[in-house]
């Protein structure tokens, strides 16, 4: 949705007086706009329409004649008054509360370490940290599942219950963290590399240690990139689905409505209530856009203040 907002916010300036020009910008944005309309806006509109309908059965014991009827905001009321919906949001926020700061801190620390003057083997280390990002989420979750389960665990699953009712949040967050860490680390590392080297020279001549250099110069300079990483992580958390879904068959601790997207999936394709699922999905869409805007605004404010 972040892409959607920016694309929508910059309409091509058309100037009728000059005849040849107007076609070109239209032409250039056309592919992106058409794909966006077809695959983002059209499904969203369709989901919204579905969310206002419901299935109504009649005709005998097994209701062999069923029809779509208009439900108004019934599905939305059902979603918003369902404690499981808020429960799933709560669990997602718990995972995010563990995962997002961890990603941010680890990605920053790794990037700073790789950028330090004394760092050796940076090429190898960078690749090693980046590599988990290249492993598909489902595969990573399966592998972590094996690492967690007592029967196959090489990391103490026999003594620690990784699927307990508290540990489960850390277990899921852990899988997600390693999935996105490498990418975010590279984003921050690239930001570090783009800082003019003269600044470091000047600081070192003034007697700044490596640590002071990192904390006083590098960190403030990459603040905008860190805002972006935070934003990506928060959006990533909202989209949490693969990891808990893949781990679900391994444990009782993950229900079919454990996080909001799993609830949407369960409503639509397990309970066959595509309408209720659409209502939850649309509610989530509104929330996601809201959070994205909020994080963006707050993040920009923060990074503006710190760069002053």
């Amino acid at each position, binding site marked *: 949705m972040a892409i959607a907002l920016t694309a929508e916010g910059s309409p091509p300036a058309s100037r009728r007086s000059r005849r040849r020009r107007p076609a070109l910008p239209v032409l250039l944005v056309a592919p992106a706009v058409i794909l966006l309309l077809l695959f983002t806006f059209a499904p969203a509109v369709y989901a919204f329409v579905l969310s206002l309908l419901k299935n*109504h059965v009649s005709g*005998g014991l097994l209701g062999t004649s069923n029809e779509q009827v208009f439900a108004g905001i019934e599905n939305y009321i059902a979603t918003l008054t369902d404690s499981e919906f808020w429960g799933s949001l709560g669990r997602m926020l718990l995972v995010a509360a563990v995962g997002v700061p961890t990603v941010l801190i680890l990605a920053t620390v790794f990037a700073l370490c790789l950028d330090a003057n004394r760092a050796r083997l940076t090429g190898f280390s960078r690749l090693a940290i980046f590599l988990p990002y290249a492993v598909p989420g489902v595969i990573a979750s399966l592998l972590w599942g094996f690492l967690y389960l007592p029967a196959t665990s090489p990391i103490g699953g026999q003594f620690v219950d990784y699927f307990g009712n508290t540990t489960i949040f850390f277990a899921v967050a852990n899988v997600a963290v390693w999935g996105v860490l490498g990418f975010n680390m590279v984003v921050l590392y690239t930001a570090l590399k783009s800082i003019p080297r003269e600044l470091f020279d000047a600081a070192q001549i003034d007697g700044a240690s490596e640590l002071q250099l990192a904390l006083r110069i590098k960190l403030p300079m990459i603040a905008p990139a860190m805002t972006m990483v935070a934003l990506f992580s928060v959006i990533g958390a909202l989209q949490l689905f693969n990891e808990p879904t893949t781990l679900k068959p391994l*444990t*009782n601790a993950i229900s079919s409505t454990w996080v909001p997207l799993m609830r949407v999936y369960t409503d639509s394709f397990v309970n066959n209530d595509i309408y209720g699922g659409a209502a939850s999905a649309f509610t989530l869409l509104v929330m996601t856009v809201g959070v994205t805007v909020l994080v963006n605004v707050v993040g920009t404010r923060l990074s503006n203040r710190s760069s002053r």
Partner: protein
Amino acid sequence: MNKKLLRALAIPVSAVIGLAGLTACSTAGGDSGSSGPVKLTFVNWDNGMDVVVAAWNKANPNIQVKLIKPSGTGYTLYNKLITDTKAGTNPDVAEIEYPAIPLMISNKVIVPIDKYISSLDNYSKNVLNRVQFEGKTYGVPQNICPLVFFYRKDIFDAAGITKPPATWDEFAADAAIIHSANPKQYISNFDANSPEWFSGLSEQAGGNWWSASGSTWSVNIDDAATQKVASYWQGLLDKDLVAPGPSWSTQWNTDMNTGNIVGWISGQWAPNQLPSIAPDTAGKWAAAAVPAWTAGDKKIGTWGGEVEGVTANSKHPAEAAKFVNWMNNSQEGLNLLIKNVQVFPASAKYQSLPALSTPPPFMSTQPDYNTLMAQLASNVTGFDIWGPNANITFNTYSDAFGKAVTNKTSFLDALKTVQDTTVADMKKSGYTVK
């Protein structure tokens, strides 16, 4: 300019159409073909079914069946069938377990086949009740799957237990003996992931989750009998006498294979699945009747059992029904099913076929396996009818009981959640619930 714009648009649009083409995948089952053999598609997940289908294809050049293995079994498949029925892409014939038939009818996935098949007189009323609704027949019953208690005879013997538990009290006592002899070992697990395991136990206890009169439903999932079952298992879990994890998980498979879980309350079909669950334990298992609530009570619930249904999407329902009737209701078809899929026939007429005199390969040490099945099958009891939204009941069971096991909260509350969610959904959909 307009032309230019159009041409410019044509590129992305054609790209988009190309993409859309990629996503539109499988086509509807069967050709509307003018001449040549009728082609049917058949979705079924049982091991060994390919042999049965090959035999049919050889004998019936004019009706060729293509077997499809679904990506998921049970409700994963049924939900896909429900979704796909609107798209018209379902296979002609689908494996459907008894509890899912009302769900499949109310979602118009399967059609009545009365006009295509001659007679199902050889089936008992008890079996026909599972496929006939409001005077119509929705499939030819294949098998009957009573609950069976499978246990590791070697480990029971070593623990000094000479005979399988006859009552649930004995089961609890044996559970304690096994767990104290080796704290790693459990007599069984509580399976929050298999709703039909639990509904089977409830059937045995006398539960009657759904019943109907006219077009009014009664839903009694948290009836006294089911509460008794729930409390019993919570008691075992509280005393750490059964393992808490779900079946078919990596953990459970490993525990079954290494002998940490030494018993499994399962269905008649278990010997078809055990080779992939616990391959190292072949020949070490024995099958017995599930313990009774009162000694001597022979009543037993079921887990699974299937019909092959003809889908509403099929363009050749007559041929599909013919195939289904051959497979599930002829000596030839059933002999093949018994040998290759380890099926136990639903019709009493076929329950003494010669093919049944040999036990399934995994149970080779128990020659009278099928005699036991015949005896259990004659005592099968069940709910009046399965609900039209059993999928929701089952999913809620997994969620609610999974949560209760993890958080050590009351099973009776979980049972109430299942009842309330089921009733709420039925009312929301427009069913009349008393």
